[in-house]
């Protein structure tokens, strides 16, 4: 195995590093001066973009690994193996971002160890379920990624770490045998916590606009996570094709076929629920909330509709466009549930402050930075040689 020898210190590396530094500076401010000093959060809007984007939306955007694992291991007899590693790395980074952001957002972060103390568990809490699931999933993702790291050492020709190579050679086949049980866990856990991310806002009751407030939030969030996950794979795969000069991965077109079914199911539940609760007219009343609803729905439905046409599916450009529409629309939906549709009472409003943006931006930049370095150092990307042969 030849080592990946792409240059690491590229111009984009420095840009990302700049944003990372600014972001971490703002995080520093938050810890010294309090959350109120850097954010526009208030007692009416206790959750802002750190939760709505970094956690609720970020983890959905990180569902590539989850969505692809369903296709590969459950539906399709292990066929699209080449794509899974980069998807898992993205998932790991996305979920790590969520973890980081939570530690920035938590007011009493030093008490966060409570989650590891069964005596303090409060099993009625939806957030408890989400937190435990997400932490467990991070561990599972790391284990799923381990083979890629181990391969690096198994095939290492560098004589400097002979012990590492020996260990890697020993662990690798053992891990390979039990990996399937972690992979399945890696499908079960996101199914649980992605639906629960929807359940989180049920308790907000009428503080969340009736267009979004429904008992079906868990199932809507679950399906939403799936089609966002697939769209992210398409997005990512297309982008890295361009960035690394790799051929357009044809599996993407097959994945693109699944998305319209999911989206259709989602839209049917969405509209049936609005009709059943008598809020279809609210959704189409033309006010601010209605416009937000229409925007997200049009993006999601539009993106999915394009993918139902073979003509669009065969074109890398249009597949990319519809993937972006689905990602944006799907994320918009999550923003609506967490911020846009949230109205605690008269007199409260929220728009993120500049430092809030910078913290989120910094964490995302940090995430991409880590991803770039990792894929250049370890065999994450589909092996082109093997890829061509099996294709």
């Amino acid at each position, binding site marked *: 195995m030849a080592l990946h020898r792409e240059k690491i210190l590229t111009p984009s590396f420095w840009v990302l590093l700049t944003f990372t530094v600014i972001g971490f500076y703002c995080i520093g401010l938050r*810890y010294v001066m*309090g959350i109120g000093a850097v954010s526009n959060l208030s007692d009416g809007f206790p959750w802002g973009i750190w939760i709505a984007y970094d956690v609720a939306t970020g983890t959905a955007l990180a569902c590539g690994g989850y969505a692809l694992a369903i296709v590969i291991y459950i539906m399709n007899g292990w066929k699209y193996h080449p794509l899974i590693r980069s998807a898992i790395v993205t998932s790991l980074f996305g979920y790590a971002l969520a973890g980081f952001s939570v530690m920035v957002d938590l007011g009493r972060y030093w008490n966060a160890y409570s989650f590891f103390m069964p005596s*303090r568990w409060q099993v009625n*809490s939806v957030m408890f*379920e989400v937190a435990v699931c997400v932490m467990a999933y991070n561990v599972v993702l790391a284990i799923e990624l381990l083979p890629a790291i181990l391969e690096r050492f*198994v095939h290492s020709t560098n004589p400097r770490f002979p012990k590492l190579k020996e260990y890697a050679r020993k662990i690798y086949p053992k891990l390979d045998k039990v990996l399937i049980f972690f992979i399945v866990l890696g499908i079960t856990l996101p199914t649980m916590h992605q639906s629960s991310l929807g359940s989180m806002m049920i*308790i907000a009751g009428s503080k969340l606009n009736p267009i979004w407030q429904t008992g079906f939030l868990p199932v809507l969030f*679950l399906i939403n996570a799936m089609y966002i996950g697939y769209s992210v794979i398409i997005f990512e795969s297309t982008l890295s094709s361009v960035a690394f000069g790799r051929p357009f991965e044809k599996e993407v077109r097959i994945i693109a076929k699944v998305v319209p079914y999911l989206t259709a199911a989602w839209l049917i539940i969405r509209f049936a629920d609005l009709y059943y609760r008598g809020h279809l007219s609210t959704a189409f009343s033309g006010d601010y909330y209605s416009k937000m609803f229409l925007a997200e729905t049009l993006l999601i439905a539009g993106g999915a509709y394009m993918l139902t046409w073979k003509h669009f599916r065969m074109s890398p450009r249009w597949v990319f466009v519809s993937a972006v529409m689905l990602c944006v629309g799907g994320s918009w939906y999550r923003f609506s549930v967490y911020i846009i549709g949230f109205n605690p009472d008269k007199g409260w409003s929220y728009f993120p402050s500049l430092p809030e943006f910078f913290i989120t931006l910094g964490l995302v930049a940090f995430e991409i930075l880590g991803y770039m370095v990792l894929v250049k150092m370890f065999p994450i990307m589909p092996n082109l040689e093997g890829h061509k042969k099996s294709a």
Partner: protein
Amino acid sequence: MMKKTRREFIKLAALSGAGIAAAPLAAEASAPITANEEAVGMLYDATLCVGCKACVASCKNVNDMDAAPAPNDADRLWDAPEDLDYRTRNIIKLYKDGEGDFSYVKHQCMHCIKPSCVSACPVAAMQQEKDRGIVFYDKDICIGCRYCQVACPFNIPKFEWPKAFPKIVKCDLCKFTNLKDKGIPACCEVCPTKAVIYGKRDFLLAEAKKRLAENPGKYQKEIYGEFEVGGTNVIYIAGESFSNLGFRELEFDSNAAFSENIQHTIYKGFVAPVALYGFLAFVAIKNRKNHHGHGHGHDAKHEDKHGSEK
């Protein structure tokens, strides 16, 4: 192949979705919420309140709260809170409509019978006393996630936003202070007109109904807190409509109960997640066998070859 994939996909989606989708339907048939016989609370009668704010001062004094100076008070001499915040657990506000038509109103924690904040808290920092129903907070457990603030239908829990080591602040009926020492919350103890009184919920509710019956012209017909979000232990009667007094019109069902029902339906006995795991493991292992030879370890083999070629 694609046809099979699609069919199996729909099967899977149906399986994982069914449990979650069925939850809200199942959750509707939940038992009604009733207050404990021993539950205590307060009755506030807005028609008796003279706006002296003795309750605000006393609450701050007893619970050791900071003053909240008015914006223009350069000398910071006066405690003049405009609303509930991390320095103010209890406040008197004035509603005024044109000439002569006005009413005072007191705001603090409503001590819901089925509190959303308690249900939301992931680490049980927000708790409810089993017998007396008092909702209180333990800062030593709290992680500061503020889910209680998101969950509370009355927007009561407040957060110390300007502090580096903040906590949540809300009325706990003087559980650790005045109630413990003197058997009555500070605000009820000092109220000169008995506009706010302390007692068992049953008694307070009966008293409220008696006052409404004796003086129907003076009061609104509604007792706020009797049914809202499943009922609260702090209840209100007033001459002004409650929406004018800053109360939201709320559903009678408890959001906390609804949320818990959905969550418990999905996770009852942990059967559904385990079943999902079992099903997925079965399919995945079957698929691996079917795919033998092209299965796992595939990449490694290739990369070995790849390496030797180089």
